[in-house]
């Protein structure tokens, strides 16, 4: 049975009603799909640029932000010093402990080796005959052998360096001599009574000994354990040097001549000391 005119009319009205009711939604849907399409297009275009930028950032992050981050960290550390100290304290403690353990292990190996050598039958017999130095002193001297690192001969008043012997690499000996003289003057002025002088400065493994004369003084930097024998020997050597240079004043004017005298005397004495030590050990 075919549709009547009334049926068609109903359908048309229904379509019309649909058009009227959904027109706005359809419009929105259209806009939305357009937006999505545009986004897709944009994504395809922008993606490589963004990827490139990310890669650039990954590679050059320290260059772009390094200083800012360092500055931020510095400020952060400065502002929360207590927290930082608290956080670092256990770590530092562990590190220090580790370092000390390693050093003590090295030291104990060294001492063991020396004790084994010292208490060998050969050495015990040798000591019976030679005597003098105690075992502890001998062990200590070998483990922490004293070394003359620097010797400066300095003019008392001006602080000018007259001559030097050096094992190390001091950047500017003249400047060091000047400052040393200033420190010496300062100490004399601040603490001393008439006619007293600064004689020793210790800093960690270094010991600075000052031997004062009238117009000059001799500063000696030594490392290791300085025992009485070594000290006496060194003072004797320095006194001999002073005697020579104060008798022949040309040494005060000719730096090279004085340097040679220092080198010859101190290395000769060191050599003698080493030879003596070797002969005792190897006896």
């Amino acid at each position, binding site marked *: 049975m075919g549709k009547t005119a009334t049926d068609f009319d109903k359908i048309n009205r229904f379509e019309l009603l649909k058009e009227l009711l959904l027109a706005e939604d359809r419009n929105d849907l259209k806009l939305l799909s357009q937006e999505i399409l545009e986004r897709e297009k944009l994504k395809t275009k922008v993606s490589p640029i963004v990827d490139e930028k990310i890669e650039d950032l990954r590679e050059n992050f320290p260059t772009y932000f390094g200083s800012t981050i360092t500055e931020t960290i510095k400020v952060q550390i400065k502002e929360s010093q207590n927290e930082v100290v608290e956080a670092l304290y256990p770590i530092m403690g562990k590190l220090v402990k580790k370092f000390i353990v390693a050093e003590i292990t090295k030291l104990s190996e060294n001492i063991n080796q020396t004790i084994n050598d010292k208490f060998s039958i050969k050495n015990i017999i040798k000591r019976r005959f030679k005597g003098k130095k105690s075992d502890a002193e001998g062990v200590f001297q070998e483990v922490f052998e004293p070394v003359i690192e620097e010797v400066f001969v300095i003019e008392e008043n001006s*602080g*000018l360096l007259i001559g030097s012997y050096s094992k190390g690499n001091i950047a500017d000996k003249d400047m060091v001599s*000047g*400052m040393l003289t200033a*420190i010496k003057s300062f100490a*004399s002025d601040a603490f001393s009574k008439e006619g007293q002088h600064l004689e020793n400065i210790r800093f960690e493994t270094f010991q600075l000994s000052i031997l004062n004369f009238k117009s000059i003084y001799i500063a000696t930097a030594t490392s290791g354990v300085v025992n009485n024998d070594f000290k006496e020997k060194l003072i004797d050597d320095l006194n001999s040097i002073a005697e020579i240079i104060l008798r022949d004043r040309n040494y005060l004017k000719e730096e090279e001549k004085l340097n040679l005298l220092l080198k010859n005397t101190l290395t000769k004495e060191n050599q003698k000391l080493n030879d003596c030590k070797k002969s005792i050990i190897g006896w």
Partner: protein
Amino acid sequence: MIAKKVLLVGSFGVGKTSLIRRFVLNEFSEDYISTIGVRVSAKIMKIQEEEVKLLIWDIAGTYGEEKIPKSYFLGASAAMFVFDVSREETYLDIKNQLDAVKSISGLKNIMLVGNKKDLISDEKLAEIMKIIPISIDLMTSAKEDENVEDAFIKLTLQSLK
């Protein structure tokens, strides 16, 4: 090479350290000045085909003004007295201060330098030169690097006399 000890003296804040900083690169930390009242710097100068190592003792203040060990002044071959042209109090008593330095150091001549010339006009500078009873060797500006090298050359020459 010969080495000479030279002094740089003058009241606090006249710019002695700035003159050295402008002239010498190789130096100890400035902390020493506040700690022991002196800081030694070194500079090698080539004067008349001869190399001279200048050990410059930058002394905080002048003797008598602050508690400075007398021994800092001993054994020097020359000295430069620096005053600040923009601060009257640094040059009003200059004759007495110079005499004090001369008597402790044993130096007969002391170079007189007015620093911070960039802070005042030429007219004012001429006025100051009239007020100061001793002839001024040089007017310098550590800030503008004016006459600094010349002042140290003159000091070196004086140390060689």
